[in-house]
């Protein structure tokens, strides 16, 4: 691995270690939460954020594929984003469910945020199911890209409009607050740092995933 990449990977490693340490040692406990359970926040929120980023990224790469010359690397990038989005999304859902159990006594309430993340997971699953049912490379890329773009169109309704309509049990989140941050500064710092680190982590793994896919693609070159 090139020295610059090694340096960046090392920095990311340090950053995430600091975030994890900060989550347990630096940030205070949130008011209104039982025991140490508010610590889950620092893991749940970044992963949910990354899942959201992945959704948008997959949509954008799909657009670039469709309208930017049908380059296979854009298709690979979109598929990798969906796979990672699914992984982070599942983790976010599980951590969210654990927290819900501690806070409200039930793992699942179908409050709008929970609904949104589940529907996002369904999207990811459907995208991957579609891909696995198409053999022809071009058809697979084209059709899954179209579906990802459709997902992008529906995303605002999923993540923003629908939650506002329904009653919410979810505590006010930093992202949604109208500029007013209702959390202690140190918590906000750890949250933002965690989200930034998780985003970097996403793009790093994504890059690896794309390069791997490209190598596999090259290895399945046509038989003469």
């Amino acid at each position, binding site marked *: 691995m090139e020295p610059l990449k090694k340096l960046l990977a090392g920095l990311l490693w340090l950053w995430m270690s600091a975030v994890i340490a900060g989550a347990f040692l630096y940030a205070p406990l949130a008011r209104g939460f039982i025991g140490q359970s508010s610590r889950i926040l620092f893991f749940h929120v970044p992963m949910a954020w990354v899942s959201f980023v992945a959704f948008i990224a997959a949509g954008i790469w799909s657009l670039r594929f*469709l309208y930017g010359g049908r380059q296979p690397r854009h298709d690979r990038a979109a598929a990798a984003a969906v796979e990672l989005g699914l992984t982070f999304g599942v983790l976010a859902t599980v951590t969210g469910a654990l927290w819900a159990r501690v806070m409200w006594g039930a793992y699942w309430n179908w409050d709008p945020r929970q*609904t949104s993340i589940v*529907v*996002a997971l*369904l*999207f990811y*699953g*459907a995208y991957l*199911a*579609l891909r696995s*049912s*198409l053999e022809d490379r*071009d*058809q697979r890329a*084209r*059709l899954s*890209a*179209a*579906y990802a*773009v*459709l*997902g992008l*169109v*529906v995303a605002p*309704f*999923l993540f923003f*409009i*629908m939650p506002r*309509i*329904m009653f919410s049990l979810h505590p006010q989140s930093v992202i949604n607050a109208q500029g007013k941050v209702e959390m202690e500064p140190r918590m906000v710092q750890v949250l933002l740092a965690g989200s930034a680190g998780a985003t970097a982590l996403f793009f790093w793994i994504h890059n690896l995933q794309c390069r791997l896919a490209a190598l596999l693609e090259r290895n399945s070159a046509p038989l003469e």
Partner: protein
Amino acid sequence: MWRDASTWAAEALAVFAKEWRCEFRTRYALNTLGLFAFTTLVVVSVSLGPVGVSTSRGTAVLPVLLWVILLFSAAAGLPRAFVQEEETQTATALRLAATPSALFCGKLLYGLTLTFALEILVTPVFVAMTSLDVKSPGLLAAVLAAGGFGLAAGSTLVAAIIAQARSKGTLFSVMAFPVLLPLLLIAVELSRGAVAGDPAGVALLQLLLYDASVTVAGFMLFPVVWNP
């Protein structure tokens, strides 16, 4: 340019007419939708009608069930528009002869009329069989129209995507559900409000916005989906 526009519309209408002409000869979609809707209607109204559950609980639950019936009936009947073209291999002739946007428009119109016909048949019977007291029937009609539109538009586009894949049946439900869920949840909330007599509010506008977004997306994405 005017002449071009009118012949594009003529193409779309030709597709629409062909869909209904074939449908009337086989009655396949009408039978499937009709049977499905009727069966679920009977189950719902018997178990949750005035004899089955208290009125207040019924008011909360019944609008949901109405939309569930509509959703699954649509899933049973709408994908055929594209799946059958691929299965009977008439898709090749269509790809060579039709303008994609006109083709999509014709299929969309067919899906819309099918969905609206379904709603017009199901809703009054549903309301009657469950003795549902709808305080704002006008609002309910508006929600059904807007929701039905989105249902048809989303289903038609997803149908076009899955028509070229294997295992189309399960794939359609798996792919359409996430796309349609925001529509359904908003429509159910609005329907509950219509039954209770609440004013519409901004949610109806958001429903219309959803319809517009999905329709525009459909027209833009269909050529990519349909042709290599």
